[in-house]
């Protein structure tokens, strides 16, 4: 059992557990599951500067900020105490492709060859981390939710706009991962 917890969890265990976050938050206090809203609450709390979109009582949503702080803490616990430290196992095809770009370190879940404080100052690192992050923040809010809010919560509640959003998330990802990323990784 302990050994099993230390291994990566298969999809049929981790997927349903993620799905259970939906009823958990609803029953704990009538909260609909989502993460990207926390980014908006940070804006509303720290720099609303008269923008009407950030002019609301963010304290009503403070639960969401507490929730995301918990996510970071939970990840720390999982890495420190619940991980075997084995490298991430991915498809051999991906390993072969990435080795062509000099990416060979699978010891952590983010490729250390790409995401570190030194590469941040390179064009490649800047595009991956800063431009990528900006698109995540801008896009999720424009779409009205992220993978949690639309793809899990919205689809669970049978909302067709959430299906449209999910299809567009995937379409955008397919385009960039297959057509654009190869050029960025060559930088």
């Amino acid at each position, binding site marked *: 059992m302990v050994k099993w917890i230390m291994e990566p969890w298969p999809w049929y265990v981790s997927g349903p557990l993620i799905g259970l976050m939906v009823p958990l938050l609803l029953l704990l206090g009538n909260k609909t599951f989502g993460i990207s809203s926390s980014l908006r609450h940070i804006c509303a709390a720290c720099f609303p500067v008269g923008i009407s979109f950030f002019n609301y009582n963010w304290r009503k949503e403070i639960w969401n900020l507490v929730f995301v702080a918990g*996510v970071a803490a939970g990840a720390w616990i999982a890495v420190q105490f619940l991980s075997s430290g084995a490298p991430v196992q991915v498809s051999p095809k991906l390993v072969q492709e990435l080795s062509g770009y000099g990416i060979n370190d699978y010891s952590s879940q983010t490729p250390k060859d790409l995401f570190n404080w030194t590469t941040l100052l390179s064009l490649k690192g800047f595009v991956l981390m800063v431009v990528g992050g900006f698109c995540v923040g801008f896009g999720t809010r424009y779409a009205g939710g992220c993978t949690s809010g639309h793809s899990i919560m919205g689809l669970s509640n049978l909302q067709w706009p959430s299906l449209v959003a999910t299809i567009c998330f995937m379409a955008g990802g397919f385009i960039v991962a297959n057509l654009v990323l190869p050029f960025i990784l060559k930088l």
Partner: protein
Amino acid sequence: MQQTAQETNTDFEVRSLDTVCLNESQLVHPAWYNIKYLIAGVLFGIILVKAQVISWFRIQEMFRLQSFHMYGVIGSAVVTGMIAVYIIKKTGVKTIHGEKVDLHPKPFSKGQIYGGLIFGFGWALTGACPGPLFALIGSGATVILVSLFSAVAGTWVYGLLRPKLPH
């Protein structure tokens, strides 16, 4: 010209703009009650790491159709959530504080298409959606703090440009 519209808006109307995720509760509790959400967040963070959903490698695999893993995770999460929401609606079960569970339909907006695509671009680059951004920082990838700040900046710029964007 925005001013008049803003004045007639209730706080709830502004707060519920462009979001699925919302506090629907009318009850007021002491602040320490929020510890429930800290614990829920910790559980979610552990699951995200153990599922490897936070891994840039796993996201690249997904977008290259090289592995079933991510599709299995998201698919089984959605099915579980659907069954749970169905049961909650069918039985009318109350929250632990005895409140009725509120689930409102979300209207369609063109933002779900344009914004959805833009988020997809960012997801493939960073290998992280918002949940994993927080989880990655906790997992020790401190440089992802920069991506998080950038995501906050992206959200802020959206708020600034919102009146000019098609919806």
